[in-house]
């Protein structure tokens, strides 16, 4: 008996949908075993991380708040990944976006209101987009690998944040703690009555539709897919792959910047040294778990947000460290990548000559 892989003519749609679900379930099952081996109650840990946030309705708004930035960033990243553009510096673009929002807010002093909030968010989008334009420029002009340059700029962005919140933007009434002064109420995002759910959550629900329309229905979306599938085909089709690199990088950065701005205006209201919380990196997992599909990103963003919230809950209930959620997230990514082969190939079991009676 022999196992043979046969290339499918078309990627399997059934597998495309089934494998992410299987990845999550497999992660949970393996999680139970591994944690039991580590001497932690595995079943309880997995239930706490993956299910409790869904069962406890008072945790839903936490999940929504965590899902919003993940979805928004993942939408931008998956567009780039579709074109084989690897922006892994979303974390930095998120930070710079938030800083630009903060800068715009500071420029207006205590003045707030609809227009100011809009300008602050716009500043975040522009800031994130510009930060991502640097790797795009270096890639198209000097052929610099965008993976490395976008990541290096993330480390630079942390220092920019450190400098601003510890220096010029430091809250004078903040007991010398490196953080910006809390936002004036008029500069924060509107919040759903009697909850913490801010307007950004709505943005995260609408954007997948926008991205789906762009990717599936516009010429630009078509171009992105062609450039991603084959550079030669793109050239023959008269598509400029440089333009695609520029566009997808900047859109990725703009989305990360938007997420940073929304997080600042909607949740944290100030920026301190702990502002960069890893959303930009986790969003990479969201993009892949969502199969680079806008609606997939929406669902995957919620799943990952659940593990974030669940991870925090498990920290107090079963005393497992916060990093555990990160391990689960990485495991999901491993499984989804491993299962890619099922989408593109068919597994055939070929009976050996003897067994077949030849």
């Amino acid at each position, binding site marked *: 008996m022999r196992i043979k892989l046969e290339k499918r003519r078309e990627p399997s749609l059934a597998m495309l949908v089934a494998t992410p679900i299987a990845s999550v379930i497999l992660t949970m099952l393996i999680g139970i075993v591994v944690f039991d081996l580590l001497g932690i109650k595995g079943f309880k840990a997995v239930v706490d991380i993956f299910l409790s946030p869904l069962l406890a309705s008072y945790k839903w708004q936490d999940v929504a708040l965590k899902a919003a930035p993940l979805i928004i960033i993942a939408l931008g990243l998956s567009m780039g990944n579709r074109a084989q553009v690897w922006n892994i510096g979303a974390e930095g673009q998120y930070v710079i976006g938030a800083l630009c929002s903060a800068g715009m807010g500071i420029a207006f002093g205590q003045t707030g209101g609809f227009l100011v909030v809009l300008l602050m968010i716009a500043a975040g989008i522009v800031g994130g987009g510009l930060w991502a334009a*640097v790797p795009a420029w270096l890639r198209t002009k000097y*052929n610099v690998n965008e993976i*490395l340059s976008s990541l290096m700029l993330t480390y630079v962005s942390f*220092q920019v944040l450190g400098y601003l919140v510890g220096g010029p933007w430091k809250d004078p009434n903040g007991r010398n703690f490196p953080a910006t002064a809390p936002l004036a109420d008029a500069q924060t995002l509107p919040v759903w009555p009697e909850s913490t759910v801010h307007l950004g959550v709505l943005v995260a629900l609408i954007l997948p539709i926008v991205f789906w329309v762009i990717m599936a229905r516009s010429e630009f979306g078509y171009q992105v897919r062609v450039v991603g599938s084959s550079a030669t085909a793109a050239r023959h089709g008269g598509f400029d792959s440089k333009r695609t690199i520029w566009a997808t990088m900047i859109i990725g950065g703009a989305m990360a910047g938007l997420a940073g701005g929304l997080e600042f205006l909607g949740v944290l209201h100030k920026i301190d040294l702990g502002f960069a919380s890893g959303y930009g990196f986790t969003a990479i997992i969201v993009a892949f778990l969502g199969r680079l599909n806008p609606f997939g990103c929406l669902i995957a963003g919620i799943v990952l947000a659940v593990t974030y919230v669940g991870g925090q809950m498990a920290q107090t209930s079963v005393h497992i460290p916060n990093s555990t959620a990160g391990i689960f997230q990485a495991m999901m990514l491993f499984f989804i*990548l491993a299962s890619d082969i099922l989408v593109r190939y068919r597994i055939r079991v070929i009976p050996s000559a003897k067994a077949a009676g030849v």
Partner: protein
Amino acid sequence: MGIDFIIAAIITVVGLTTPILLAGLGELVVEKSGVLNLGVEGMMLVGAISGFAVTVYTFNPWFGVLGAAAGGALASLLFAVLVLQLNSNQVATGLALTIFGTGISSLMGLSFTGRIVVPFLSVFPESLAKHEYLQLIFGYSPIVYFALIMVPLTTWFLKSTRAGLILRAVGENDLSAHSIGYSVIKVRYAAIAFGGAMAGIGGCYFSMVITPMWAEKMTAGRGWIALALVVFAGWRTGRLLAGAYFFGILMALELYAKASGFSFLPSQFWAAMPYAMTVVALSFISSRGTAGANAPACLGKPFLPST
């Protein structure tokens, strides 16, 4: 400032260079075999905690280094199985390895937080290791000598041995290498494991020598600098050594700027310097086009034999 300062500065630079030199050499071999492993940072972290943990239990730093190598190699095998057996996307899988390594290292490190080990310093007699001038030669951790020896060894292996030739052949043209009977998969497994072990040893330099304790994410992006170093070096070992020292000097500048309170520029400027300079250096190298020409032809591509 004088001769003492210069000696101290050289020792600092050598120390800062060692981890990226080790990880970079490992990654160079991996990439020469045609595989791009972006998980260096994750493997370094796993190496850092493994080395530290083994040292805590055995009180023997030599075992610690072995443990770090084993930890890094084990982590890299996870990547190898996915990429080689299941043909998964190398970029995404490498990123997954870094995320996984970050998580698993902090989980492993929980019970070691706050503990310290005796730093793994020079094993030469104190009269040499602490000597005013001779410390320039004898005053380093054994890991430093190991890294320096590995440079000519790797060069020799890649250039002059049969195994090295096969490895390069696999990286340049996997299908041809396969058709004349070499096992592409086995060669790449070996290369990836070597890369993992080297990254692991590089990582344990942080937890066993620089600060003899464990802290989450203590490698602070050096794994990524090591990756950049390979491109910067144009996949040549000699240039990798030079590049590693160039970055080592930049990182030392940061330390000195902080210590001496160069107040005309904020300390964050110096901290951002190695990363910003990496981008600048990559631009110089990549724009000249020679580096790309030297890249292994099969780098990052899955191996898909027709039979």
